[in-house]
C-alpha cells in the first residue's frame, strides 16, 4: 500500500511539476503582455503644451496616460510646499534616505550615530522651516507629500522609542505592581484597537479635551497619535529583547554593585536592543505603510497628495497611473528596508522571532 502511494508520488512529481510550471509561465506571459501593452505600447507619454487632456481620454482603458505623472509629480511628492522652494523638500527626502542608509549599516552602530541623527534632524528642520540662512520661512501647514510621510514615520519612531523602553521596563518591574499594570493597560489598550480609531481620536476628540483657544496643530495631533500607537508596539519588541537576555546578565550587573538604572543603561539595554534590531526595522516598515492612513483625517501625506492629484477635472480618471507611482515609492522604501533587515537578522543570528506587524 505504502509502496504504491510512494510510486504515485513519484509519478506526480515527474508529470505534474512541468505541467504546473507550464501553466504558471503561460499565466505570467499573458499578464505581462497585457500590462506592457497598456503601460508602454499604447501609453500617452506627454501632451503637447497648452492642450487639454483629450488625447489621454481617448486612450483611457487601453493605454496609460503618463502625462498625468509629468504634470503632477511635484505636487504628489511635495504637496503645498511653495513651488519655487521645492528643491528644499527634495533635499529633505535625500537627507532621510541618507540617514536610513547610515543607520542600517552596521559600521555606524556607535554612539556617534545619535549625533549624526541629531544633526540630520536639525538640517531637515532648517530646510523644511527655513527662516534662516536666507531661506524663506515655510510654515508646517504648507508641508506635504513624501516629506510628511517620512516625518510621521521617523519622528513617530524616534519619540515612541524612549516611551517604549520605559513601558517595557515598567511591564517587567515586578516590585511595582501599579506601574506594571498601568503599562500593561496602555499596551493592551492601544494594541487592541485599530490605528484609525486613534487617528479619529486625535482629529475630533483631542480638541474637546483642551481649553478653548489652545490648539495643537493637526499634523502634531496625528504625530501624537502615531507616537502613542508606535510606543505600544515597540514596547512589545523591546520586551522581547529583554526577555531574551539570560538571567546571569542581571545577576552579574547586581554583583558589580550597579544600581538598577546603571545596570539597565550600561548592561541590559545595549544587549537587549541589539537582539531586536531586525524586529525594530520590520516594525518601522509597518509604521511607514501605516502613515498612509492619515488620508482618512485629511492630512496631505504622500497617499493623500496622490489621490488629490487626479481630482482636478482635467485629470480625473487617471488614478491608476498615480497609484502605480505611489506603489513604486512605497515599495522602494519598504522592500529595501526589508532586505537589509533580513541581512541583519542573519548576521546578528538573532533567535527566530515572529515579527509582529502593527495594524
Amino acid at each position, binding site marked *: 500500500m505504502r509502496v504504491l502511494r510512494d510510486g504515485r508520488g513519484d509519478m506526480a512529481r515527474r508529470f505534474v511539476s512541468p505541467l504546473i510550471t507550464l501553466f504558471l509561465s503561460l499565466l505570467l506571459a499573458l499578464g505581462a503582455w497585457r500590462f506592457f501593452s497598456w503601460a508602454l505600447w499604447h501609453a500617452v507619454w506627454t501632451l503637447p503644451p497648452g492642450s487639454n487632456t483629450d488625447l489621454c481620454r481617448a486612450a483611457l482603458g487601453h493605454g496609460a496616460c503618463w502625462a498625468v505623472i509629468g504634470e503632477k509629480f511635484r505636487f504628489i511628492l511635495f504637496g503645498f510646499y511653495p513651488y519655487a522652494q521645492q528643491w528644499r523638500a527634495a533635499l529633505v527626502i535625500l537627507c532621510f534616505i541618507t540617514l536610513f542608509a547610515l543607520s542600517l549599516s552596521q559600521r555606524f552602530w556607535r554612539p556617534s550615530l545619535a549625533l549624526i541623527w541629531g544633526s540630520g534632524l536639525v538640517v531637515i528642520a532648517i530646510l523644511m522651516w527655513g527662516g534662516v540662512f536666507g531661506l524663506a520661512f515655510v510654515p508646517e501647514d504648507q508641508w506635504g507629500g513624501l516629506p510628511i510621510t517620512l516625518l510621521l514615520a521617523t519622528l513617530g519612531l524616534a519619540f515612541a522609542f524612549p516611551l517604549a523602553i520605559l513601558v517595557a521596563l515598567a511591564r517587567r518591574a515586578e516590585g511595582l505592581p501599579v506601574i506594571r499594570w498601568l503599562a500593561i493597560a496602555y499596551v493592551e489598550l492601544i494594541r487592541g484597537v485599530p490605528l484609525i480609531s486613534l487617528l479619529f481620536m486625535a482629529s475630533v476628540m483631542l*480638541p474637546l479635551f483642551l481649553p478653548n483657544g489652545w490648539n495643537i496643530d493637526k499634523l502634531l495631533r496625528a504625530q501624537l497619535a502615531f507616537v502613542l500607537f508606535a510606543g505600544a508596539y515597540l514596547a512589545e519588541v523591546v520586551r522581547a529583547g529583554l526577555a531574551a537576555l539570560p538571567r546571569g546578565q542581571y545577576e552579574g550587573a547586581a554583583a558589580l554593585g550597579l544600581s538598577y538604572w546603571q545596570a539597565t543603561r550600561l548592561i541590559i539595554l545595549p544587549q537587549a536592543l541589539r537582539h531586536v534590531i531586525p524586529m525594530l526595522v520590520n516594525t518601522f516598515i509597518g509604521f511607514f505603510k501605516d502613515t498612509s492612513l492619515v488620508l482618512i483625517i485629511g492630512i496631505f501625506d504622500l497617499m493623500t497628495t496622490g489621490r*488629490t492629484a487626479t481630482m*482636478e477635472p482635467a485629470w480625473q480618471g487617471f488614478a491608476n497611473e498615480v497609484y502605480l507611482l505611489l506603489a513604486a515609492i512605497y515599495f522602494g522604501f519598504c522592500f529595501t528596508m526589508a532586505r537589509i533587515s533580513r541581512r541583519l537578522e542573519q548576521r546578528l543570528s538573532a533567535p527566530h522571532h515572529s515579527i509582529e506587524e502593527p495594524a
Partner: protein
Amino acid sequence: MPPFLCRPAASPGPARGVFVLVARAIIGCALALLSHGPAQAAGSGSPTLDAVRARGVLSCGVAGNAAGFSLPDSQGVMQGIDAEGCRAIAAAVLGDQRKVKFVPTTTENRFTALQSGEIDVLVRETTWTLGREASLGLEFGVINFYDGTGFMVKKSSGVTSAHDLDGATICVEPGTSTELAIADYFRVNNMKYTPVEIQDLQEIHNAFLSGRCDAYSTDSSALAGFRFTQGAHADDFLLLPELISKEPLGPMVRKGDDKWFDIVRWVSFAQITGEEYGVSSRNIENFTNTTNPDIRRLLGIEGNLGEALGLDNRWAFNILKQVGNTGEVWNRTMAPLGLPRGLNGLWNRGGLMFAPPLR
C-alpha cells in the same frame, strides 16, 4: 519654532543647580502655554480678529478636495470659490490676500476644527441648516453659493425624472446633507433605493462612471462640474430636472463673536457690491476719482465704514484689488467647470446675490 517647545529662560545671577533650571523651565512653559489661551487683551473687541492679527495669518478651513470650491492645482496652490473666500477675508483683515493658512478638513472634523479655534472661519461648501446652527455653537455668515441636491444619470439608462429612480443604486457621500435629503425624498415618495456611501470624491466618481451606481447624487453644481470634466462624453450624462433640496452654502464662524461674524459677511457683500457697480481688480484704479458716493464709501475714499467694522478703511479696496468682485471670482473658479451662473448671479440679473447697502 512650534509653540510647544519652550526654552528655559536664561538665569540671572549664580546658577543654583539643575533643580532651579528645571523649575524655571516648567514655570516658563506653563506661562507660555497659558498665554496661548484666548486673547482677551484690549483690542478690537473680537477675540478672533485679535487672534488673526496677532498671528498675522488667517487660518481658514477648506475641503481641499472639491474642484471649483477648493482644490490644489499642480503647483500646490489652493484654487476655487471657497479658497477665494478665504483670500478675500485675509485681504480685508490683514491687507494681503496671500496671508491665508489653508487647513484641509474632512466632513468629520470640520466643525470640531472651528469649535476648538484651530481655524478662524470654515469655508467648506457647508450647507446652512437650522439643525447645524442650533446645535453646534456655530453660525453661518452669509451664502456664497446657492445650490440644490440633484441627480445625474447616464443617458443610456433611459431615466428622465427622479420618479423613475425606484429601486436604483445611488452614490452619495456619507455625513452630508445630500444623504439626508435623499433618504427623505425616497421615503416621502414611497420609493426604494440602495445607497453606496463613499467618503472619497474620486472613488464616488469612479463608482458612477463604472456603473456601480445608477445615479450620482450631490449638489447640482458639483454634478454639472462633474459632467463638464467628461469632455467629449459630457452628453452621455443627464442632470435630472428635479432638485430635491435647497443647499445654500456659506462660511461658518463661532457664535458669540459678533464683530468677526460681521466682517465675514460684509467681505462677501463688498464683493457683490463691487460687481454691482462694475468695480473689478482690473479697473479699480480708475475709480479713485469717482463722484459716485456709493463707490466712494465702498473704496474708503469717503466715510469710515471700514473702521466701523474694526478694519482698515481700505478693506474693500484691498479685497477688490487683490481678489476681485463676485463675478471675477466666479469666472476664475466655477465658469471653467461649465457651470451656468443661474441663482448665483446678481439680483438684478436673475440671481439671488443681493448685498445690503454700504452706508
